[in-house]
């Protein structure tokens, strides 16, 4: 139940999280999964992550290019576009506007 609820939340915001991580630098799928885990969101499997990246790419919010990084072989690097930055700004605003009252309402239950 808990895992399922978390999965549902994630489905709604994973694209925003990815855009947020790409805001300052380009990155590739595996590294994004590690960053999400390190940020405390938990492990994200490739089967969940790559369809989101492809949707973002198709919508023009990110672009992708295969090239070699500082170390290691060629990987597909994603980079946020201006369009993507605007979507992150709007979506981030909407998320905060949604989560703030939710937090206020449920906080009593957590404390009590």
């Amino acid at each position: 139940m808990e895992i399922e609820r978390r999965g549902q939340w994630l489905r709604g915001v994973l694209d925003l999280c990815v855009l947020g991580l790409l805001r300052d630098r380009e990155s590739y799928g595996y590294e994004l999964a590690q960053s999400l885990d390190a940020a405390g969101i938990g492990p994200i499997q490739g089967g969940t992550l790559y369809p989101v990246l492809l949707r973002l790419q198709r919508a023009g919010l990110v672009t992708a290019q295969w090239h070699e990084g500082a170390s290691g072989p060629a990987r597909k690097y994603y980079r946020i576009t201006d369009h993507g930055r605007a979507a992150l700004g709007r979506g981030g605003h909407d998320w905060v506007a949604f989560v703030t009252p939710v937090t206020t309402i449920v906080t009593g239950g957590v404390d009590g």
Partner: protein
Amino acid sequence: MNADQWLHALGVELHRRRVATEDVRHVVAEAATHLRDGGGDPWTVFGTPDRYAAAIAESVGTRPAPRPGTVRLHAEGITKRYGRRTVLRDAGLTVRAGQIAAIVGANGCGKSTFLRICAGVESPDGGQVTVSGRLGYCPQQGGTDDFLLPDEHFVLVGAGRGMGRATARRAGRIAARQLGWESDRAVLARRLSGGTRQKLNLTLSTLTEPDVLLLDEPYQGFDRGTYVNFWDQLLRLRDEGRAIVVVTHLLNQLDRVDLVLDLTPATPGGRP
């Protein structure tokens, strides 16, 4: 099923869902990179090949199913006897532009004979073949000259279509590269390995940009990577509107073809 097999199955599933060939390549390569970076079981990381392929298809979209074009190859009532043995009895096949047909069946059931009759290098005892447009034929053996270089093959075959030497050489090298073969080394055909000679054979059959391409088990001696490249190339040719007939005994390719002609004697004739 190991990671390579999982990736191969993913490619097959993506093609089957008509994800664009270019996208298939990227998605499979990216999954391979991810697995190499993180290790892990592809079944846990990505799920089953068909479920993951479905999620990808939803994300990137799929190519529209092409409308079958004009009839390029029509064979009907094909009968062939060798002495008292009837190899083919009333076999038929109709292939339109933008379709791949597979000819399957047990060894010795007449698959190659049927293809040779379609190519016009053998005559049937009964029946008729109509071909509309230019024909390319890749036989199982032969088709290359032992004492010519790959480039000389390209020039020779290109000349048959009025291509200049440089144009033919360039086109041949590009086509060879799509099969993962750098063909610019000056090596006589007889010094090439069986698999590479087969790549040369295949390259020659596509060099003249035929409307109808007949291939007789053209992947013998190919490694797995070449084999995948080969099917990518076939799908690309199909999407360009070629009519392709391929003799095959490997069942896992059938997902990606449009028509199947089974020449096993118990079930004569074609089925869609």
